[in-house]
Every structure is written in structure tokens, then in C-alpha cells.
């Protein structure tokens, strides 16, 4: 508004005036005294914190650091902390001042210096002081307040630059600070130790028993014992929470005495929750419950005392109905992790009605969100139908911000606990109806995968989508699912005159013009499938394909599909049509891509899944796939490895044999041969351990893009023996037929059980387009004639790249021959260049390819040019070959 603008303008004017004034004072002939300097630096800071830029005054602030007056020094440090930039000149001066203050033995000056280091927390600061601070921390004569600052300052530096904080003698002395008289020192030290212990659990193992005894003394103390460290009648809540947090870095204590003492502590904390409050103030209950929730976290982390777990669950159950919103929120959140423990899963389930009620009545969206999370976590076969129904209900009115997540959760639960797949199909269609915009690709891909894999549900699915498509305004995602399913299984309902072929077609086509390009492309594929399924409507479909709006469509993809499908329907015999447009083969069973998506959305470790946690725990205990100490990050990375694909295809572009993959358990070797459009690959699986692999299942997954109706690559394998003895090797043969040119290499997925842990890995199989090369010798004249013929800009693809290997002509020649093309000598006028030619053989067509590689030794670069009759082939071959030099 006008007035706001005016006052804003006035403020800026006033501030500019003030800045000019300060600048003139700093630049003036008269040297300013410390007091004035402090005053003006303070003003600058004030202006900066109002949101204005400050580009001077740094030097004056640095000058204040060396003042002997505390308030001047203090303002100097504050300015540096807030306005520091990596001005190298100043950093040297600042570090000098800090060094002096650290050595001053004046505890207040030392405190200011330590605060400044922690506030800036840069790598430069760590380089300068990370060696010094541990000494101050453990020196016998350091004051308590300085020790506290030193501990937290060191923690800050360790977080920014762990490599600069070397472990050493001081670490054991830091652990003993847990015994310090001064509770403030213990509090600060516990924070430091917790972070250090996460990365170096062995080194700080002794902290466990010390933490337990300290905790025990606190929880059993009378509320006045700890004097100033008692907060609203709760003894040392901050320290208690930190100790409980530290203990969460370790498994339950091994020493039975320590373990017993800890169990007593936890029981005491749970007991206190039932006692009447010592004060009506919210601070009292917050502090008390903060300790209680942290204790419950530790109980869940240990997951070893069924009795404590069930008590924790009952306590949280009480909070679910508490009048304080905060407590209800936290109880829902905490119960989520309890639900994933096998000991307390059943106890959590008893609260289902309360949680559903929360979903319906809570007024705060963050609380409802927690309720959704908890319902998801407590879901199993016994309550899945109820929970999914409630989530769908909630979805109708849910906040837009959480809809996508609810959709994913519903889709996962519906699939996981479907006994009856008609229920699953109904659920997903409901999802699309209620929240179509939030149904991602992964979700509707998945429903199609499942319908294709289960013939008992195909007829039902066809009938249901047909009915759903009757709605005058249905979501585009429904058109996609409907189009795909009717294209595959429309014949199953075609007997009913109400859903005759023509009616099905007209229904789908009535949606066509309202849809986006990808959906229209999918519908065109449905139409060509209809040509095969329902010969009686072939001419109707051909008429549609032939119309100008299709054949002359501005979109290249749509136009190409229309042209190709029309041609296919005209020239192909019924047999060929039936083969090409055959029903999709079942998809290989694998982890739901939706689950992967939810993990990605929530980050690893936050998707609570009982089985997965069990899996993780067992691998944790055996430490099988990872080196001895499985720490947090290893578990996380192990999880991500499970769903990512190892891609070493480039290593095999120019060769056919070698080791494809190797880890501590398994080695995979390859031997392959190719002739024209056919090939055969021998895969050797070697068990490197002395233990049997069980349920050993390698599966070749052809292409992720299953919307490719016509398979480009036809792969056939036989299953291998599911047991692989220790030290043994098994062999698998893959017969390969290249049907048409393809881009993506197929994926080999291997699952097996090893010593009680489930192993799952995916590797790309190096079956690349160039494997189907036949070399073609030709004269220089022929070569250039053909080169000219392929001069359409779309036929040529060029790449200029830096050499990754030494530029050796002989090796380069060998690689081009290994790539599959002929190496044509004396063709290029420049003898340093390499020229090749060959034909890619596919079942449907042959594609002539010419290539030219020009090295530039001086620049250590190459220029690679590919010319073929097909843009995509030029592109792919260029990609593959560029990786090799």
C-alpha cells in the first residue's frame, strides 16, 4: 500500500543518510576512539539486520577485536560472526585476534573467541583452530565455562570438517567429562561425544556405561538435588535427553549390570509419567514428556525388551487422546516407529479407531499427516481393507500438499495386501477418480503391470475401466489406463453387446481430442491393437488413422504412429499382425517402482516397512554384504544400491568377454557371440563364499519402457538351479534376437538369499546395438558417394570430446574393429583419421552406417561423426563409441 511504500522509502532514505555519516566518520582525519568505533560498528550491524546491504566497516570491526574493553571486543566479534565473508586479508587478521584471545587465559575473552569460531564455522576456521581446541577442552586448569564453549566449538568444527579434527589422546579424556562435577560441562560434552560416537563408535564405546550411570543418578534424584539444573521440577531434562540420545548410537549394553541399570532407568521414566504432575505449568509437562519421548525412542531403537515396548505403546495410547495437540501429534509420530517393531506391532494396531478418528477430526493438517503415516505403518493383511478405505475417504478432502503422498501410500498398501485383485483394481481406479492429478506415472504403470501378470483379473479390469470411462468428464490418467487395458483385454468384454468392439472404440475415441500428446500416442497404439483383436472394425479404425488430423498431425510422434500403424494394418497379413500385436508378455516380478518413489520422496529410512526393517536388521547383525562395522551410512547406501542398476556397459562395447560384476559374494562373467541379428550370451555366476546361495533367481528384464508394444529385442533364457553351492559356478544362456534398433541395454536382476539375508542386485547386460554390426569393406570412392547420400542433417550425429585414454593409433584401430565396423584404410585424405563402415542387422531392417574419427593430438580431443539412415541409430552408435577413447 501507499503508506507502506512511503514509510519504506523514508526508511531507506534515512538509512542511506546514516550510512554516509558513518562512512565519513570512518574515513575522517581524526582517529576514532574505541567507544565511537564500537558505536558505529554496532549501527552498521543494526542496519544490516534490518535487511540492508553493508559493504564497509569490516576493518573497524576487526580493530575492535584487539581492544581490551570487553564490550568493544564483544561488538567486534558479533559483527564478524554475522557479516563474515571469506575476505582472505581479513581472515588472517581475525584469526590473529582469536589466537591472542585463546591464549589470554581470560575466560571471558576465551569464550568470545570460541563463540566466534563456532559462529563462523568455516573450513578456514577449522584449519586454523581444530588442533588447538581439544587441548583447551581437556587441560586441567581450564575454567568450566570455557570447557563448555570449547566442547561445542569443537563439535561445530567437526561437523563442517571432520577430517581436520584428528582423534587422539584427548578422546578418552573427553569421555570422562561425562563424570564431571559440573552439569553444564557434562551437557556440552555429551553433545560432542554423541556426534563423535556416530562416526567412531569403537573409540567411544566406554561412554555407554558412563552415560547409563549418569542418567541413573539423574532420574533417581529428588527434584531439588540438582538445584539450578532442575527445570520446573524436572531434574536436568536437557542432559537426560542428550544422554538418551547418546545411547541411541549403540546397541543395548552387553554388560548385564549396565543393561539392568538402564532398564531400571527407563522403567522409572515410564513410571513417572503416571505420577500426578508436580506443577500445572506447561513447562513442567513439556520437560517431563520430552524425557519420556526420548526414552521411548531409545526403547524402540533397542527393540529388544518386549515389556518396555508394550508399556511405551500404552503410554503413547494415552497421549493419543490428550487435550494437548502437541502431545497427540508426538504420540502419532512416535507410534509410527513402534508399529514397525514385531514386539509392539499388535499393540499399536489396537489403537486403529482412535487414529482413524484423528484423521477425521483433527483440525491441524500436520497432525492429520502424522495420522496417515501411522495408519500406513500399522497396516497389515488384517486391517488393510479398512485402512485403505479410510485413506481414500480422507483423500477427498485432504490438503493438496499431502495428496501425492497419500496416493502413493494407498497404491502400495492396495497392492501389498490384495488378496482379491478386483479390490486392487477398484482401489486404483478410485484413486484416479478422486485425485487423478496426483496419480503419478509409477502408479498407473503398476496397475497395468499387475493386470497383465494376473489373468484372473483381466476381464474384471476391462469391464471396470469400460464402465469408468462412461463418465462424461474422466481424468486423463483413466483414459491412459483404460486405453491400455482395453487394447490388451477388450476382447474379454466384447461379447456383451453393450461393450461391443465398436462401442469400445467410439468410447475411447470420444476422449482422444481432449488428451495430451503422450495419451493420444498411447490411444493410437490401442487402435492398432484393436485392428488385431477386432477385425470387424478394422476399416473404421483405418478411416480414423487416415484422416488429415492424424496423418498430417503437427506432432512428429503422432504422425509417425498414424502412418506406421495405417501401413501395418494395410500390408501385414493376419498372422503377422497377430504376432506383432500379440498380448503383452507378463512383466518380471520386481520391487514396486511406487515403493521406490515413496522412498525417494521421503528419503531412505523414513519409509517404515516392517519386513524391510527386519531385512535390514538381519543384514546389520550378520554384516554380510558390508565390512564388519555396519554404520548408519553403510546401511543407507546398501539400501540405495538395492534399487540402483550397475551400469558398466561401456566396458563391453568393443569386446564380448570379461567380468561384468564382482562384489564380496558374487562374480558374474560373460562370454558372447553375435552373428547378423542373432546372438548368444553365456553368463557365469560364481559364488565366492563358502556358503550356499538359496533361491538364486537371475531374471533378464528387457526394457523399462513397456509401452513399447513391439519388442525391439527378443531375449530367451532358461531358469538356473536355485541353489548355488559355496565356491561353485553356474551358467545361464541367453539367446538374443534383435528385432529392430533399440537404445537401452537390458537389465539383469539377480535375487538370492545368503546366510539369512536377502540380496538383490541389478546390472545392465552389455547387449548394445553395435553388436549386430556386419563390417563392410568399400573403396574410397564408394565411401564418399554413400557419405554424400546421407547428408540430411538428421542422419548425421557428431560429438567432440576430450581423450580419456592415451591417443594410440593402434589401440584406436583395434577398438573400431571391436566396435564391429570395418576399418577402411586409405580412404580419408588425412592419414591420421580413422574411417569405418558396416551394416546393423535387425530382423525387420538393415541399416548402413558410416563413421569417421578425427583425432587432434595437440588438443587431446577427438571429433566423431556418424552417418546412418536413421537418426536414432546415429545417435546411439555415436554415444556408445564416444565412451571408448
Amino acid at each position, binding site marked *: 500500500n501507499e503508506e507502506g511504500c512511503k514509510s519504506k522509502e523514508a526508511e531507506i532514505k534515512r538509512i542511506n543518510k546514516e550510512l554516509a555519516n558513518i562512512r565519513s566518520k570512518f574515513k575522517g582525519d581524526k582517529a576514532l576512539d574505541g567507544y565511537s568505533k564500537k558505536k558505529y560498528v554496532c549501527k552498521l550491524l543494526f542496519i544490516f539486520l534490518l535487511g540492508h546491504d553493508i559493504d564497509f566497516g569490516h576493518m573497524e570491526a576487526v580493530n575492535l577485536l584487539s581492544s581490551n574493553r570487553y564490550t568493544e571486543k564483544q561488538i567486534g566479534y558479533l559483527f564478524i560472526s554475522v557479516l563474515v565473508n571469506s575476505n582472505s586479508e581479513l581472515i588472517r587478521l581475525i584469526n590473529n585476534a582469536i589466537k591472542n584471545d585463546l591464549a589470554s587465559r581470560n575466560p571471558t575473552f576465551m569464550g568470545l573467541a570460541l563463540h566466534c569460531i563456532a559462529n563462523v564455522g568455516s573450513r578456514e576456521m577449522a584449519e586454523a583452530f581444530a588442533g588447538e581446541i581439544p587441548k583447551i577442552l581437556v587441560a586441567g586448569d581450564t575454567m568450566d565455562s570455557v570447557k563448555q564453549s570449547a566442547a561445542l566449538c569443537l563439535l561445530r568444527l567437526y*561437523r563442517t570438517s571432520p577430517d581436520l579434527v584428528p582423534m587422539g589422546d584427548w578422546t578418552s579424556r573427553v569421555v570422562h567429562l561425562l563424570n564431571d562435577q559440573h552439569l553444564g560441562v557434562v551437557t556440552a560434552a555429551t553433545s560432542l561425544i554423541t556426534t563423535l560416537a556416530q562416526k567412531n563408535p569403537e573409540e567411544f564405546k566406554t561412554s555407554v556405561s558412563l552415560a547409563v550411570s549418569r542418567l541413573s543418578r539423574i532420574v533417581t534424584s529428588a527434584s531439588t538435588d540438582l538445584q539450578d539444573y532442575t527445570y520446573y521440577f524436572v531434574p536436568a531434562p536437557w542432559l537426560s535427553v542428550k544422554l538418551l540420545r547418546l545411547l541411541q548410537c549403540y546397541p543395548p549394553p552387553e554388560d548385564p549390570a549396565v543393561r539392568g541399570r538402564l532398564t531400571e532407568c527407563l522403567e522409572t521414566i515410564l513410571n513417572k509419567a503416571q505420577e500426578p504432575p508436580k506443577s500445572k505449568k506447561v513447562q513442567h509437562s513439556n520437560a517431563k514428556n520430552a524425557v519420556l519421548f526420548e526414552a521411548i525412542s531409545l526403547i524402540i531403537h533397542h527393540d529388544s525388551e518386549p515389556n518396555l515396548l508394550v508399556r511405551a505403546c500404552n503410554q503413547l495410547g494415552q497421549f493419543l487422546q490428550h487435550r494437548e495437540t502437541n502431545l497427540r501429534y508426538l504420540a502419532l509420530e512416535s507410534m509410527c516407529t513402534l508399529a514397525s517393531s514385531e514386539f509392539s506391532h499388535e499393540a499399536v494396531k489396537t489403537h486403529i479407531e482412535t487414529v482413524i478418528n484423528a484423521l477425521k477430526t483433527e483440525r491441524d493438517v500436520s497432525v492429520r499427516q502424522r495420522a496417515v503415516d501411522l495408519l500406513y505403518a500399522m497396516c497389515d493383511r488384517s486391517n488393510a481393507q479398512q485402512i485403505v478405505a479410510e485413506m481414500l475417504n480422507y483423500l477427498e478432502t485432504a490438503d493438496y500438499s499431502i495428496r501425492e503422498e497419500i496416493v502413493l501410500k494407498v497404491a502400495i498398501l492396495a497392492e501389498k495386501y490384495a488378496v482379491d485383485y478386483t479390490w486392487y483394481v477398484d482401489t486404483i481406479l478410485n484413486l484416479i477418480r478422486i485425485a487423478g492429478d496426483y496419480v503419478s506415472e509409477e502408479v498407473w504403470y503398476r496397475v497395468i503391470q499387475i493386470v497383465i501378470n494376473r489373468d484372473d483379473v483381466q476381464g474384471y479390469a476391462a469391464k471396470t475401466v469400460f464402465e469408468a470411462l462412461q463418465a462424461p468428464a474422466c481424468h486423463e490418467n483413466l483414459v491412459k489406463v483404460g486405453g491400455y487395458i482395453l487394447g490388451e483385454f477388450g476382447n474379454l468384454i466384447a461379447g456383451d453387446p453393450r461393450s461391443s468392439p465398436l462401442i469400445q472404440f467410439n468410447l475411447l475415441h470420444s476422449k482422444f481430442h481432449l488428451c495430451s500428446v503422450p495419451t493420444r500416442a498411447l490411444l493410437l497404439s490401442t487402435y492398432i491393437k484393436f485392428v488385431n483383436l477386432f477385425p470387424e472394425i478394422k476399416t473404421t479404425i483405418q478411416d480414423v488413422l487416415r484422416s488429415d488430423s492424424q496423418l498430417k498431425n503437427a506432432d512428429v510422434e503422432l504422425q509417425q504412429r498414424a502412418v506406421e500403424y495405417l501401413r501395418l494394418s494395410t500390408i501385414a497379413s493376419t498372422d503377422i499382425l497377430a504376432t506383432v500385436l500379440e498380448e503383452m508378455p507378463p512383466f518380471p516380478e520386481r520391487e514396486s517402482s511406487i515403493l521406490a518413489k515413496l522412498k525417494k520422496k521421503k528419503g531412505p529410512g523414513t519409509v517404515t516397512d516392517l519386513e524391510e526393517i527386519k531385512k535390514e536388521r538381519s543384514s546389520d547383525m550378520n554384516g554380510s554384504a558390508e565390512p564388519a562395522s555396519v554404520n548408519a551410512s553403510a546401511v543407507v547406501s546398501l539400501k540405495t544400491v538395492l534399487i540402483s542398476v550397475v551400469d558398466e556397459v561401456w566396458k563391453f562395447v568393443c569386446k564380448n568377454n570379461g567380468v561384468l560384476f564382482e562384489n564380496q559374494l558374487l562374480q558374474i562373467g560373460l562370454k558372447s557371440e553375435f552373428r547378423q541379428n542373432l546372438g548368444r550370451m553365456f553368463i557365469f555366476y560364481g559364488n565366492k563364499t563358502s556358503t550356499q546361495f538359496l533361491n538364486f533367481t537371475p531374471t533378464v528384464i528387457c526394457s523399462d519402457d513397456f509401452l513399447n508394444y513391439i519388442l525391439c529385442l527378443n531375449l530367451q533364457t532358461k531358469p538356473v538351479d536355485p541353489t548355488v553351492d559355496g565356491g561353485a559356478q553356474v551358467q545361464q544362456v541367453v539367446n538374443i534376437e534383435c528385432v529392430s534398433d533399440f537404445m537401452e541395454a537390458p537389465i539383469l536382476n539377480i535375487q538370492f538369499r545368503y546366510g539369512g539375508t536377502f540380496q538383490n542386485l541389478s546390472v545392465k547386460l552389455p547387449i548394445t546395438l553395435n553388436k549386430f554390426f556386419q563390417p563392410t569393406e568399400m573403396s574410397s570412392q564408394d565411401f564418399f558417394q554413400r557419405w554424400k547420400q546421407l547428408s540430411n542433417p538428421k542422419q548425421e550425429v557428431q560429438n567432440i570430446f576430450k581423450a580419456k585414454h592415451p591417443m594410440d593409433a593402434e589401440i584406436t584401430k583395434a577398438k573400431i574393429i571391436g566396435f564391429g565396423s570395418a576399418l577402411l584404410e586409405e580412404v580419408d585424405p588425412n592419414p591420421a583419421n580413422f574411417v569405418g563402415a558396416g551394416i546393423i542387422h535387425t530382423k525387420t531392417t538393415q541399416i548402413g552406417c558410416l563413421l569417421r574419427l578425427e583425432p587432434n593430438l595437440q588438443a587431446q580431443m577427438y571429433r566423431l561423426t556418424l552417418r546412418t539412415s536413421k537418426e536414432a541409430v546415429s545417435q546411439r552408435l555415436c554415444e556408445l563409441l564416444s565412451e571408448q577413447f
Partner: protein
Amino acid sequence: GCLRQQPGKIHFILLFSRQGKLRLQKWYTTLPEKEKKKITREIVQIILARNQKTSSFVDWKDLKLVYKRYASLYFCCAIEDQDNELLTLEVVHRYVELLDRYFGNVCELDIIFNFEKAYFILDEFIMGGEVQETSKKSAVKAIEDSDMLQETVEEYMNKPAF
């Protein structure tokens, strides 16, 4: 294994008025100035939009915001998702108590005109995002000890007005 990355750590603390004016900002994570401004704007908006009956916690990116209103000022801390929310509320309360004890029933104007003191008190209480001294006596004593030089009324008046 312990899955928590930075237990206990507060990432930043913001104090702002009901009109959305930022009164104090303390960052325990190094961020560019531009980013800080963006985050501040976003968070002030989120929290001012919430009504009174809601919980004191908001999921924000991969962090959690814990906030409470005292008179005309909102105090907001950003903590790790796994962190102890209730105790963070008491961190805020303890800070308010420390300000109260120093200023004697603190009000927004105290923090505007003595912003440096508000920062010093916070520094005594929290360092690098971790609670340093929970004892009220020790924390305030440190400030009072150092407070040998009181500012004059004249100095107050010299500061730019709002």
C-alpha cells in the same frame, strides 16, 4: 547403527513480529545471505498463516519447525526431523526467561533497541545449535558480568528509528 545425522542440533532460530518483521536471526548452518532471506520469508509466511489451535510443529523440507508465540513475537527454531520437539519448545521458553531476567519483563522494543544484548544472551545459552548452559543463573551471570558499560539514553536515541 545410528541413523541420525546431527542429533540435537538447531539449524536456525528466527524471531519475528506478528506483522512479519524479523527481529532476530541466528543461523547455525552456513548459508548464503540470499538463501537466508528466502528461507526467512517462506517460514514467516507459513507460521503466520497457522491458527492458534494447531500444534507447535510444522514439517518444513526435511526439517521440523518448532515455534511459539510470546506476546507480539514469534520464536521459531528449525530442528532435525528426528529431534526432540518438546524440549525445543523449552529451549525457546528458557531463552525468553533469560531475556526477561536481563531486561525485566522483556518486550519487542527491548529486542529492537538492544539487539546486540539479545544476541549475546542467546550466545551464552546456545552455541553451534547446541544448548550450552541450561542453568539460568550461570547464563545471565555471564552477561551481567560483562555488562560493565551500560549504554546511555543518548545512544538509544541515536539509533535509526523504524
